[in-house]
């Protein structure tokens, strides 16, 4: 837990330049679906970074944040949430079984929804590591925001020359 605390601190220390919130899209009803429109705040960010390694400075510059990649991530998330909330035979069986056992089974078993949420958490972590962290972004799992928004934290870029 001390580990977590220090990492949180470090997260704060890497200064947050802005936060962009991707809101929910309710045009299909109450299903969890996020807007796939690429937010304008992310469009014009030029990333120019440098890092030190063994007293040598490497400098490079990244292109603008890839719009297609971002939209793909949001679309995959939407699909995963749709899978979680799908009314299929599996959910019906689960529901009926739970009803017959007076819902005691929920104390022992993990629901389908929870399993998919774990999948989503893993997916977001992967995406953050592979794509967004190198671009100075961090996607927050929507479950931590009550499934209201996808919070994209934009860390401040610093360009450094030797």
């Amino acid at each position, binding site marked *: *837990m*001390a*580990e*977590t*605390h220090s*990492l*949180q*601190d*470090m*997260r*704060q*220390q*890497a*200064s*947050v*330049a*802005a*936060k962009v*919130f991707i809101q*929910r899209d*309710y045009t*299909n*009803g*109450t299903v969890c679906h996020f807007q796939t429109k690429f937010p304008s705040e992310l469009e014009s960010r030029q990333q120019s*970074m440098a*890092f*030190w*390694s063994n007293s040598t400075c490497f400098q490079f510059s990244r292109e603008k944040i890839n719009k297609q990649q971002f939209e793909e991530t949001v679309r995959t998330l939407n699909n995963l949430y749709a899978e*979680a*909330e799908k*009314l299929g035979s599996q*959910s019906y069986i*689960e*529901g009926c079984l739970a009803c017959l056992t007076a*819902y*005691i089974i929920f104390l022992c078993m993990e*629901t*389908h*929804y929870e399993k998919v*949420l774990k999948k989503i*958490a*893993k997916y977001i*972590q992967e995406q*953050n*590591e592979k794509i967004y*962290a190198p671009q*100075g972004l*961090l996607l927050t*799992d929507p*479950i931590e925001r*009550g*499934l*209201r*928004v996808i919070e994209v*934290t934009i*860390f401040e*870029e*610093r*360009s*450094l020359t030797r």
Partner: protein
Amino acid sequence: MHLGVSESMRECEYNQISTRSSTPMETPYKNRTPKKRKWESFPGRNKFYCNGRIMMAKQTGVFYLTLALILVTCGLFFTFDCPFLALQLTPVIPVIGGVLFLFVLGTLLRTSFSDPGVLPRANADEAADLERQIDVANGSTGYRPPPRTKEVVINGQTVKLKYCFTCKIFRPPRASHCSLCDNCVERFDHHCPWVGNCVGRRNYRFFYMFILSLSFLTIFIFSFVITHIILRSHRFGFLSALKDSPASVLEVVVCFFSVWSIVGLSGFHTYLISSNQTTNEDIKGSWSSKRGKDNYNPYSYGNIFTNCCAALCGPLPPSLIDRRGFVRSDAPQLAPPTNGITTYGATQSQQGHMCDQDHCIQGTKFVLQAAATPLLQQHSSEPVILTTCPENGGSMPGRGPLTLGGPCASLPLGQPTPPTSIPSLGCHEAADMLPIHGHGHSHNHSHPLQEPVAHHHFLTPEEVPSPPGMLPCGSPMGHNHAMQAGFYNPASQDSLHEDSVRGLVKLSFV
């Protein structure tokens, strides 16, 4: 937990550059503040038991009455009627009675103790972002902003999403703010004082099963008690039968009054489920054809069977509020923590199990730190999103769009009935709709009615953004930042570089 902390302290002392340790400045501070669970600083008006596992509304008196009625009636039935019936008729009767009783109790407790689908309030950043968007849309800078609504077209129907001034969010469709619990609840049905909780998306099926099984149980007990009395009177005469088992009389009375309201309520909710409506929507007539020819329910799946399956056997969403997670005393904020707003935001922060994300954060952090000049202070950049003063939205008591406490349009007690000021005795609007109203029940309401109304009037001015419970978080926040100011110094540059290399290596491994 304590062991872990002391270990890291030791780590800190010799090995500051270890990627897994906390700084020496922080750990002693951390030892001082005990870890709080999120339920302890929950902003709504709920009661929590068993360290956050159980969640109920504030007024639970009527729930204990429900429990007592069920336990006493069933207890009397099993003690006085069942022995006779088991001998005279069949022992299956107590068995079925027992099964029904356990099912009723199980579903009642599930309904009362679970999270109905409370939407967590927006943290400071989100609220500020929304405010900014609304201001841009409105273009107005009035003192009192007009009620904020957003229109969405759902399956061809235009639905208005209202902005909740308390929770600082646009309520999703079918969500409503319960004035008794002071929470926005998803797919809000009504606030039921009999179960001592709101009925919403997550516990509607338990509520329905409860009233359904309770109807069966009531009818079961009623019919078998009558059977018992009849059989006894055949043998011993009517008056003698009543004298022999006086408990039966009490049971008959209770069951007689319960049957009408409970069975009526079950019927009403069966209708609601088959048409995929909530009590709230039905009472307001949101999807009634009287409103217009083209008015239809956009959430209905078209046929009764699918609607029923969806409501009762659909996937059960998990709780969004993470009651048992630990409060993180720091959360990445855009502005320095100088005012109460940040406090509010801090307690709305992320869940306890952040370990996976922290690896990411660590990776990002190291990459960025490597790029950054360690000498510079953190807060040099201008935050893009400013945290605005939430008092704008929060300080207006008794405002219309806010408190849709529940569907209590009709209440038989002669009080003026704006939905905001009467606690929703939702279970009884249904009873009102029947020609026979459970008289016994209205008496029960007069007592709890007074309290909640008084509460409401007392509490509406309380829509202030930072409840006192959250204030302790403000100081650690400020403290943290002050400490960070001292953390970076030129002397640690080399260690930081080592860290960064290590961090990059770690990033590639994770």
